[in-house]
C-alpha cells in the first residue's frame, strides 16, 4: 500500500451562511492525476486554499505525506513539496518571464536570503530557460510578465509552480482562457513533464473533455460536498453528477 500524498478528513469551513466545505474526505496517492470538477461556487478553489493553508478550516484534518499541516502557512506547506497555480494567474507582472522562474528557483535552492551573488547566475538562468522551453515560453523570456497574453500567463503560472520541483502540483483551471486547440497541446506538454518528473497532480477543470482525456480519477464537488469520487468514465456518466455540474442529466 503506497503512502498517500494527501489525506483530507472531515474538512469543514463556512463563510457565514455559505458552506464552503462540508466534511470533505479525500485521499490522493502518488502518480494520480486527479481532476476536480463542479459547478461555480462548489468550493473547488476553496478546497485548494484550505489544503495549502491560505484558509483555515473550522474542522478537519489535512496531512501531506503523513504530516499534519493544519495551521501551517502557505510558504511552509509549499516548502514541503506542494506547488500551486491559480485560477487567476499569480505572476510578478513587473518582472520578466525569466525572472519569474528565477525567483522560484532561487527559493528552491534555499537562497531567498542571499544578498551577494546575483539572481541571474549562469547555471540558474540555464535551468530557468529549460523550464521555459518545456512550456513554450522561451521566446518571451525577456519580456515583462505583464505583457503576456492570457494563455501565456496561465502557462507561466504553472511553470513557476513546476520549477519548484514539487511532489504534488495543484492547478486551478490550468487551461481556462486558452483556445480550444491550445488546450490539448498544453495538457499534453504538462502531462509529459509531470510524468517524466514523477509529479502527482490535482487539477480543477471546467472542460469535461480535458478531464475525461487526462484524469486518472475525478472528484466532483457541489456546495462544498464531495458528490462523487472515482474513475472518469463512471463519474462523468453518472446522471446525478451531470445534473449537479451542468444542470442537465
Amino acid at each position: 500500500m503506497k503512502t498517500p500524498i494527501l489525506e483530507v478528513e472531515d474538512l469543514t469551513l463556512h463563510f457565514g451562511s455559505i458552506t464552503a466545505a462540508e466534511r470533505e474526505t479525500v485521499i490522493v496517492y502518488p502518480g494520480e492525476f486527479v481532476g476536480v470538477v463542479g459547478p461555480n461556487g462548489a468550493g473547488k478553489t476553496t478546497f485548494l486554499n484550505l489544503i495549502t493553508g491560505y484558509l483555515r478550516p473550522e474542522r478537519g484534518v489535512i496531512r501531506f505525506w503523513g504530516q499534519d499541516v493544519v495551521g501551517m502557512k502557505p510558504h511552509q506547506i509549499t516548502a514541503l513539496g506542494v506547488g500551486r497555480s491559480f485560477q487567476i494567474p499569480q505572476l510578478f507582472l513587473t518582472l520578466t518571464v525569466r525572472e519569474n522562474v528565477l525567483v522560484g528557483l532561487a527559493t528552491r535552492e534555499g537562497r531567498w536570503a542571499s544578498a551577494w551573488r546575483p539572481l541571474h547566475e549562469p547555471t540558474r538562468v540555464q535551468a530557468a530557460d529549460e523550464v521555459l522551453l518545456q512550456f513554450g515560453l522561451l521566446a518571451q523570456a525577456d519580456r515583462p510578465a505583464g505583457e503576456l497574453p492570457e494563455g501565456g500567463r496561465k502557462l507561466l503560472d504553472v511553470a513557476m509552480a513546476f520549477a519548484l520541483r514539487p511532489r504534488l502540483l495543484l492547478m486551478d483551471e490550468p487551461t481556462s482562457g486558452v483556445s480550444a486547440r491550445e488546450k490539448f497541446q498544453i495538457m499534453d506538454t504538462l502531462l509529459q513533464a509531470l510524468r517524466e518528473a514523477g509529479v502527482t497532480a490535482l487539477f480543477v477543470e471546467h472542460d469535461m473533455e480535458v478531464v475525461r482525456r487526462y484524469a486518472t480519477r475525478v472528484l466532483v464537488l457541489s456546495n462544498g460536498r464531495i458528490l462523487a469520487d472515482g474513475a472518469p468514465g463512471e463519474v462523468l456518466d453518472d446522471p446525478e453528477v451531470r445534473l449537479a455540474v451542468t444542470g442537465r442529466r
Partner: protein
Amino acid sequence: MSQVLIIGVDGLVFASWLFLVSVGLSLIYGVLRILNVAHGSLFAVGAYSGASLVVAYSQAGNWPWGTLLALPAAALAAGLVLGPLVERGVLRWTYGREPVVQLLVTFSVFLILEDATKLLWGVSPYYAYQPYQLLGQVHIGGIDYPAYSFLLLLVAVVAGGGLWWFVRRTRFGRVVVAVIHDPEMSVALGVNLSRVYVATFALGTVLAALGGAFTAPMISVVPGIGVEVIVLAFAVVVVGGLGSLEGAAVGALLIGLVRAAAVHLLPVLELFTIYLVMAAVLLVRPLGLFGRVEVRRI
C-alpha cells in the same frame, strides 16, 4: 475616590477631543481606503477659520454667545470648500493606484496646506479665547473645571451621535456603509462611487475642521498645530480599527482614560501612553479593536 472621579472626567474630556479630531480620518479611510495625511492640516484650517471668525465677530461687538455658533459655522464653511477641492482636484487622479502612492499624495497636500495656512492667516498666533472664557468654570470633585471642556464633550457626543444616525438611518448613510464593506458590489448595484467619495471626503473634512475649530479657543493657534494632531489621530484610528466609527470612539475612550491615569499617577509616561496603548492593542488584535480582516481572493 475623588481622584478616580478626576481621572474619569479628565479621561472623558480628552477622549472626546480625540474622538472629534480622529473620526473624520477613520471615515475617509473606511470609504476611500486612503489614509489622509492632510487630515492634520484640515484640522489646522478649521482651527484658523474658527479662530479668525471668532476674533472678527467678537471685535465687532456682537452677542457673545454667538461665538459658539461661529465655530461650527467656520468649520462647515472650511470643510465644504476644502473637501471637494482636495478630492476632485487631487485625490481623484490617484484612485486605483498603489496605497503607497495615495499616501504620498495626501502627504503632498499636507505640505501644501501647511504653507497655504501661513500665507492666508500669517504666522502670528490667534487667540480666540472668547468662547472659553464665556463658559466659565464648573465645580467638580473639589476642583474647578473649565466648562468649555464639557462643551467639547457635548460636541463629540453630538457629532458621534449624528454620524451614527446618518449611517444607520439615512439612505445615503447606508450606501456609505455598503461602499465601506464592498466597493465592487456597490458599483454593481448602481451606486455612484464618485459622488459617494466627494461627499464622504467633504464630511471627513468638515469633521476634521470641526475638531480644529473647537480646539482653537483652548490654545493659541499657530503654524504647525496640525502636525501633532496627525500622529494622535492616526494612533486613535489604528487602535480602533481603520474605517470603524465605533472603533474611533472606543479607541479614543481607551487612550483618553489611560492617558488621564498616567498624567495623575505616572506623569513620566504621559507622552508615551498613546503609543503604549497602540502597541499593546496591536499585539493582541493586529488590525485594531474593530478592524476587519480582508483576505485577498485568489
